[in-house]
């Protein structure tokens, strides 16, 4: 029994980097959502470093091949997606129209939440100068924001923050990929 386990362990370590690349490619391909290196490492019982190296090598290959697909890091996970330039053909084939965009009010509310999170409704009002209840409902419905508990302040207002879906829908690796809010100052006047 012990020996068997040992043999299995040896077998696992026997995966060559090239083999590992083909395996992670298949897994990322079938995934519904971006897959983290940790999940891949757990499933394959491999070292996280080895997984990351394999994915990075694969991403380089995709890049060099200049094919129809690209490998991206979204919400901290790996994702295989079509290339931007092919959107017309892909959309025509899928017979889909671009989904409805958020209103200006909702985008502004989302921007305040993304940069000030966790943030309360009164704090959003302070910055936007307008009630944002409708926008907050829209953003909650679209799962772009989530409630982050109540603030220990008068009235214990609910705090909101962005969700994983926000990162996915806006193609962000993580929140630090957003440009600093102070960078927008240069655009003012």
């Amino acid at each position, binding site marked *: 029994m012990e020996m068997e386990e040992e043999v299995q362990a040896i077998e696992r370590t026997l995966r060559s980097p090239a083999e590992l690349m083909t395996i992670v490619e298949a897994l990322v*391909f*079938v*995934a*519904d*959502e971006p897959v983290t290196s940790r999940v891949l490492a757990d499933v394959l019982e491999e070292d996280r470093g080895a997984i990351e190296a394999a994915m990075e090598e694969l991403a380089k290959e995709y890049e060099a091949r200049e094919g129809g697909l*690209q490998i991206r890091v979204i919400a901290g996970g790996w*994702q*295989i*997606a*079509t*290339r*931007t*330039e092919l*959107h017309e053909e*892909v959309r025509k084939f*899928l017979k*889909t129209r*671009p*989904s409805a*965009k*958020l*209103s*200006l*009010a*909702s*985008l*502004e509310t*989302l*921007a*305040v939440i*993304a*940069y000030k999170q966790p943030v309360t409704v009164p704090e959003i009002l302070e*910055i*936007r*100068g*307008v*009630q*944002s*209840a*409708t*926008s907050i409902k*829209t953003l909650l419905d679209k799962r772009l924001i989530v409630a982050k508990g109540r603030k220990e302040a008068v009235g214990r207002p609910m705090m909101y923050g962005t969700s994983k879906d926000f990162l996915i*829908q*806006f*193609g*962000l690796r993580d929140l630090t990929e*957003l*440009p600093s*809010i*102070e960078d*927008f*100052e240069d*655009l*003012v*006047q």
Partner: protein
Amino acid sequence: MSEELEQYNFDFHHETAEIVRDGSEELKIKIGEFAGPLDLLLFLIKQEQANIFDIPIAKITQKYLEYIQIMKKLDIAVAADFLVMAATLIEIKSRMLLPRDPKAVEEEEFEDPRQELVDRLLEYEKFKSAAGMLYERTTIEQAIFTRGEIAREEISLADMIKTLKARILELGEVNLFEFFEGMRSKHELVTAFIAVLEIVRTETVRLLQKTTFGDIILRKV
């Protein structure tokens, strides 16, 4: 209740609003969507080509009030927040008219009544720009497809009705349990169910169930 309107279609690259006087001097207005009073103020300041750090408060207040009047005339619900800003502007304007306290000027304690508003406008404008950045990102993201998204792409009711009609025409009858089993998501299942109701209502078909809890068959009459 003051709620911003959500139903407008919005294009970030279009002028948000415009007040035009045509030949007959009749005031015409192209209503755009303003995200709020600060947005309207920024627009008016830009339109007057005024310096945000030295806002001609009398002129801007007058333009702002004109704008609100037009909105009212056109029966557009003016959110309370717009009226709050009107009051703020009028207050600043009147404070600017008051003679300055000579002592305060000497001691450099004099604060420009516009300062707080300027700070708010500058802070707001940063987030307005950030919203523009998010808008650009969605545009790019809509050009990128993943398998996950495609799987989640839901079939429309019209398409579902078409599919079901085609199956009835082809086979003469459709077992609804089998039809529903082919649905990939809850949403699709609901769409399929509504499609069945719609077809029963509009087409010459009949629903048959021979035994209690038995299969339900949709059959062409």
